[in-house]
């Protein structure tokens, strides 16, 4: 990996984040490349979601920096940051659907917020929303409100909203948390499908569901106590340290 590797989309350098005196993230160095699906795993509460939130600068680092396509996030001005964020799709842990809007408006929202120059017209937006709803199997839910939906349906709407603009970088924070096995598999199938739509897409998935992630992820990053303890492809796990092998379990050795 050369320092100017063109396929690297996101570079995390020495990232540190402190909450109440403790370093939740303590010196993270990572690179995410185009075309990859990366699984971000590790024991609960050790910083995975926090790391994910730094990538579109939903959180500001206390140490180190994040570089997206050559732009250093911390130095960007508001409108530059807006342009960078337009390349992202983010699926939140608790769906984060706007409960004061219908499902259709929720999914259309990112498109309607685009700068006037690149925004599609109203008819195109509606067409794309309906299409994406059909893709996630919720064509009938267009006019419903989030509170009328089940957990799995809300997750799918969140997924639709995050991917509606066909983003180049998609981040999933615990996409199958609290869902039954059948719905979980559906979600991961969707993650795979969305990734394949854009050839140079980068996808990062935070999850505990290692078995389902296995079918989708090429590369794995394991975070423990705020530090990276493993960073490599599936095949490299068998050669990793005891702690790492024990975490991934027998299925991976």
């Amino acid at each position, binding site marked *: 990996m050369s320092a100017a590797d063109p396929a690297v989309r996101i570079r995390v350098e020495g990232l540190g984040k402190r909450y109440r005196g403790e370093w939740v993230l303590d010196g993270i160095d990572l690179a995410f490349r185009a075309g990859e699906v990366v699984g971000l795993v590790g024991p609960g509460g050790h910083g995975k979601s926090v790391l994910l939130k730094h990538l*579109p600068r*939903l959180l500001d680092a206390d140490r180190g920096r994040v570089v997206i396509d050559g732009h250093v996030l911390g130095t960007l001005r508001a409108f530059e940051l*807006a342009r960078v*964020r337009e390349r992202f799709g983010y699926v*939140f842990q*608790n*769906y984060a659907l*706007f409960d004061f809007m219908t499902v259709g408006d929720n999914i259309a929202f990112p498109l309607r917020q685009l700068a006037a120059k690149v925004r599609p017209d109203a008819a195109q937006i509606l067409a794309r929303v309906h299409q994406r709803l059909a893709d996630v199997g919720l064509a009938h839910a267009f006019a419903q409100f989030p509170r009328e939906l089940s957990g799995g349906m809300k997750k799918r709407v969140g997924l639709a*909203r995050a991917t509606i603009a066909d983003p180049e970088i998609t981040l999933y924070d615990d996409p199958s948390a609290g869902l039954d096995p059948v719905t979980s598999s559906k979600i991961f199938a969707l993650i795979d499908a969305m990734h394949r739509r854009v050839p140079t897409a980068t996808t990062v998935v935070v999850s505990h569901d290692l078995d389902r992630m296995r079918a989708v992820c090429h590369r794995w990053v394991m975070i423990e106590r705020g530090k990276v303890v493993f960073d490599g492809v599936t095949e490299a796990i068998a050669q990793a340290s005891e702690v790492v092998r024990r975490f991934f379990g027998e299925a991976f050795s």
Partner: protein
Amino acid sequence: MTSAASRVLAGVGRPVVGAWREARGLAGLFLDTFVAVARGRVRGREVVHQMYLVGNKSVPFVAITLAVLGLISVFQVATQIKQVIPDFTMLGAAFMQMMVREFAPTITGLMVATRVGSGIAAEIGSMVVTEQVDALRMSNADPVEYLLVPRTIAAAVMMLMLTIVGIICATIAGMLIARSGFDVSFKTFLNFQLLDAGDLALGGTKALAYGLAIPVIAGRAGLTARGGSAGVGRATTQAVVATSFAVIVLDFVISGVSYVVFGQ
């Protein structure tokens, strides 16, 4: 430095530093709100919707509260007057002047701080805790512009209207008790001779100031909520206290400035 001395200093210093940071954060939010309004990035329909919410929730509340207040005030003062010199000619005039200058805007302000302030904090707080605010930022919708600006404009306008409603209700209530308890005719009570432009300006300025301060302070409490339902509860509580206190401080400042500068 001895550890005891440094602990005392820290004990005094920490709240002061904390208060300073709060003040700075609040000032920043005020500025962001005004900049957004000045830029004209205001969603008209949302403003009207918010005005409806604020007004709808508060009108009965303000009306009853101020009617009761009018009732009590007139009753108390009239009882006093009856004992001293039973001349009720100026009762209505003095009452209405005090209402316009002080009680109507401030009590309405406190009621709105209570109802609307905690409402805004609860709403925005639960949006923060369920990551909806993060989702807004991901789509490049600035939470201040999207959430606070409509509520601020709505609150400022509604505060003026609610204060007027309050004055009317208090006056009617006062009028009724003056008639039934002390035989003061409606005509004698509705004496406008003491009211001048200065009184109206004072009351109006107060109402407007409260209307601008309450949503921003409550919004800030909501936006800094952390940690599930406990966080939302904490934010709501903080909002109620901070907005109520702000109303009282603003009352003092505006009254003070008005007296010192305008002799009003």
